[in-house]
């Protein structure tokens, strides 16, 4: 049975829970989008790594939009700055997805594990 079929059968609460946790961490540490969502989707919802990463990106559409709306009307968002880094990042994401498509799942998890450890070290050392 594929993952979305299993999720359709109920168990919606864990997904909302994953969202709540990622939002909590985002508000508390400024870190908490994909780095919280992807491992939890793999561990709790048993999603395959690639689908977890892709679904995490889809979640971030919502969370980043909500976040920006919250700041809209203040002068905290520098739109030129966002474009200068965000547009090249779109090129990066398309390349990243091409690489991901060719990468066996175990290598993907290995790479993500190293990335998570790097962020964990940063937090442990600098708080």
């Amino acid at each position: 049975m594929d993952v979305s079929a299993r999720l359709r059968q109920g168990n919606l609460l864990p997904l909302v829970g994953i969202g709540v946790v990622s939002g909590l961490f985002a508000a508390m540490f400024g870190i908490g989008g994909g780095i919280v969502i992807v491992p939890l989707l793999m561990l709790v919802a048993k999603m395959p790594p690639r689908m977890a990463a892709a679904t995490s990106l889809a979640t971030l559409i919502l969370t980043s939009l909500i976040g920006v709306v919250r700041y809209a009307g203040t002068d905290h968002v520098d739109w030129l700055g966002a474009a200068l880094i965000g547009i090249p990042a779109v090129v990066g994401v398309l390349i990243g997805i091409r690489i991901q498509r060719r990468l066996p799942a175990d290598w993907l998890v290995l790479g993500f594990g190293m990335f998570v450890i790097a962020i964990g070290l940063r937090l442990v050392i600098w708080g």
Partner: protein
Amino acid sequence: MDASPELIALAALAGVAAGLLAGLFGVGGGIVFVPTFVFLFAFDQLDAQATSLAAIIPVALIGAWRQSGEGQVDWRAAALMGGGAAIGVLFGAEVAIRLDDEVLARAFGVVLLLVGGEMLVRSARRLRTARATPGPADDPRRT
């Protein structure tokens, strides 16, 4: 914002790097964006975080759209998590005011070390087994 050609080139490089992480691992890129704004453009922390959210929008949109074309996105799961995140952000702001966030951040860091370590060990073990017995486990199409 003062944007010299050098700064624009550096921002573009950081952007591509953040995008690569987003495409590979499904993280939005804030982890690269925020320090780039702080160190390169001398934004304060709040401006950097707010602007980072704006920079994530196109990455998440195009990335999810591309992945969706390959049937990799569970949109319903994404909507549920997005709704949950909106609730979590509200509570997080409350909790952050009441607790020592440096201790919390270190605790979060330890959790990430454990989670990352588990992924590393599990995938390395599977890769070693796969090398001992070459077969379908090596096939990228399996993913």
